[in-house]
């Protein structure tokens, strides 16, 4: 976090969803945002740029959000980077699987900007 500004990586294969999440982040006051269209793209961006916080979808082509989480957690350099899963998957098994993969928090779509704000703040408090 340079100058106290958090740099977000928003990962979603839907350009509409990326735009919605980015818009919500900007409304909350976060302006440093990088986009990625799937897990593979996200990993490339993670290695190329300074990222402080990952917001990822689950279901994506090439590499899913869950695979991305596992890949990120297996790298000691990124083992503690906050990961917030934002997904349509709301089954109990899904939540359990995501938490076992060590996401920091979990949001079910459709969500409200308030929920996004709360979850980000909750995660940041624990850091």
């Amino acid at each position: 976090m340079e100058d106290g500004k958090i740099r977000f990586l928003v990962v979603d294969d839907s350009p509409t969803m990326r735009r919605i999440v980015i818009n919500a982040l900007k409304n909350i006051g976060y302006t440093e945002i990088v986009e990625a269209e799937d897990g593979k793209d996200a990993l490339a961006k993670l290695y190329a740029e300074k990222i402080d916080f990952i917001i990822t979808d689950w279901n994506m082509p090439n590499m899913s959000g869950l695979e991305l989480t596992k890949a990120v957690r297996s790298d000691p350099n990124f083992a503690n980077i906050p990961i917030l899963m934002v997904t349509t998957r709301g089954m109990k098994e899904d939540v359990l699987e995501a938490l076992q993969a060590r996401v920091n928090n979990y949001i079910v779509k459709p969500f409200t900007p308030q929920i996004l704000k709360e979850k980000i703040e909750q995660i940041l408090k624990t850091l």
Partner: protein
Amino acid sequence: MEARRETGIVNQIDFILNEIEELKALFILGRRLIPFLEELFNFVREIAPVLDEINKSLEESSSKIPRASNQLSKVTKTTEMATTEILDALDEMSLKFGEIKGFLNAIKLCHDKQKKLARRMDRYFKKRDFEGAENLWGKFSEVLKNCDGFDDVLEKLSDAKQSADNIMMALQFQDITAQQISAINHLIGSVQEKLSNLLERLGNIEHRSFGVKLAEDNNKEDSFNSLAEYVEPGSKQKIVDRVIKDLTNNIANGDGSPASQEEIDRLFNEGEKEKRER
């Protein structure tokens, strides 16, 4: 007499020879028929599993059609819900903008009155008629009191922005319908594959795509969630939060292990119960 007897014997021998010839022909036919019958038996033996497979494939394929139909209904429902939400937000916005226009008209009216009074006061000052200017100042202050509509405008603008944000969030339906449609594509793809395989098997017909080209990522089930649904934003979140809280508590208690399935089930059942009660 003797000659007639001899002719009768010859005829009988001819008859026997003919019968023998016919028998011989029958044996030859039988010998030729056996391999054909064997082939027929083999064909029936081979076709039985193929017919069974056709039956299973058709059964499986036809079971996917109602699923695709249900998915299509979900898309319609999702689109309808989101459209209603967007229309509600637009109505709200239109109402707020109408109110803002009303406030701004009133402010403009005030501003025009102030301008007129200011010009008249200016003339009094130029004539050094301070008494006249003082009287006008009283009127000016009165007008000023009634011009205080900016706070209302700001409040209504904030409401209108909230409606715009609600529209933005309602557009999440696009992602949800995209996943529902991907699930339909996947079902169609698997039915197409089954039918193509069957046709190939039956008549050695070369695989044809029937002119339908399915997207490559449709085969990757992890790229969409067939259970994606559009509900009231945030309505599922409470249930998920309780699961997370429970798991976090377990870890905080030093247990270190994730919550058991029974515990999660209990939480979800409670969540469902709450939802029903609401």
